[in-house]
């Protein structure tokens, strides 16, 4: 899995590319979040547009990111999840944990409204 990082306003957008399955991905993800929080960046949008699929270990990776930004007083939301990923979030009730947006604009705006 590849992760590229960009910023819009007070939000950091992580564009993921590949499959989210645990293993080495988990470490990469944890490091990215650690470094973001060290820099005081705590509002994160995870862009799942180019994520073809995810397994339950991949969900765990998202939850670990969520936990670390929440602890720092921020939030994590996802955007552009495929139908397949949406249905996994729904079944595991993780849609109650992190909000899922269809547009980047809405996703970024969600932080302003919350704070």
């Amino acid at each position, binding site marked *: 899995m590849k992760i590229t990082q960009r910023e819009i306003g007070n939000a950091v957008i992580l564009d993921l590319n590949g*499959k989210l*399955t*645990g*293993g080495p991905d988990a470490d990469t993800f944890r490091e990215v979040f650690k470094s973001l929080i060290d820099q005081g960046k705590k509002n994160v949008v995870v862009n799942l547009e180019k994520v*073809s*699929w995810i*397994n*339950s*270990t991949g*969900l*765990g*990776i998202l*939850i*670990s990111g969520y*936990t670390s930004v929440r602890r720092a007083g921020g939030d994590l939301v996802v955007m552009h999840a495929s*139908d*397949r990923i949406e*249905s*996994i979030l729904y*079944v*595991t*009730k*993780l849609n*109650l*944990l992190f909000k899922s947006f269809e547009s980047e604009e809405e996703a970024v705006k969600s932080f302003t409204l919350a704070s």
Partner: protein
Amino acid sequence: MGKTDSVEQMILNIPSDLKYLGAVDAAIQDLAREFSFSSDAINDVSTALIEACSNAIEHGNRFDPAKRVVVTLRFNGQSFTACVKDEGPGFNFQAALDEKSPPDPMSERGRGLMIMKAFTDRLSFRYADGGLCVELAKHRGDDGPEE
């Protein structure tokens, strides 16, 4: 052309390495499309199968490069069944299947069986050939509402 159940099956044999999950996913998706599964049913069987394979690699074979995961896919007119076999010691699957309470929302693990149950019509476990075999079944989903 007489076709028996054993004829209409594809067997995938992979190392205990997550790198191979994508190939399994790609194969099941193409095959389910070929057998006219609805797109919801295609997503559901792929998700459940990948989850079973992930567990076989991680918990069953503990990433041991000498151990294999064998996935048998069977399609017939209306439904799909799969068996995912690892070379591990197994676990108390009955307790896990009976478990009704979802994991703590903040827990990073423990959602695999829940996902497999949700995305299949039938889920069972048995021991075979020195390993655990997870069996999944799913209807093709064109003549009933999807969950």
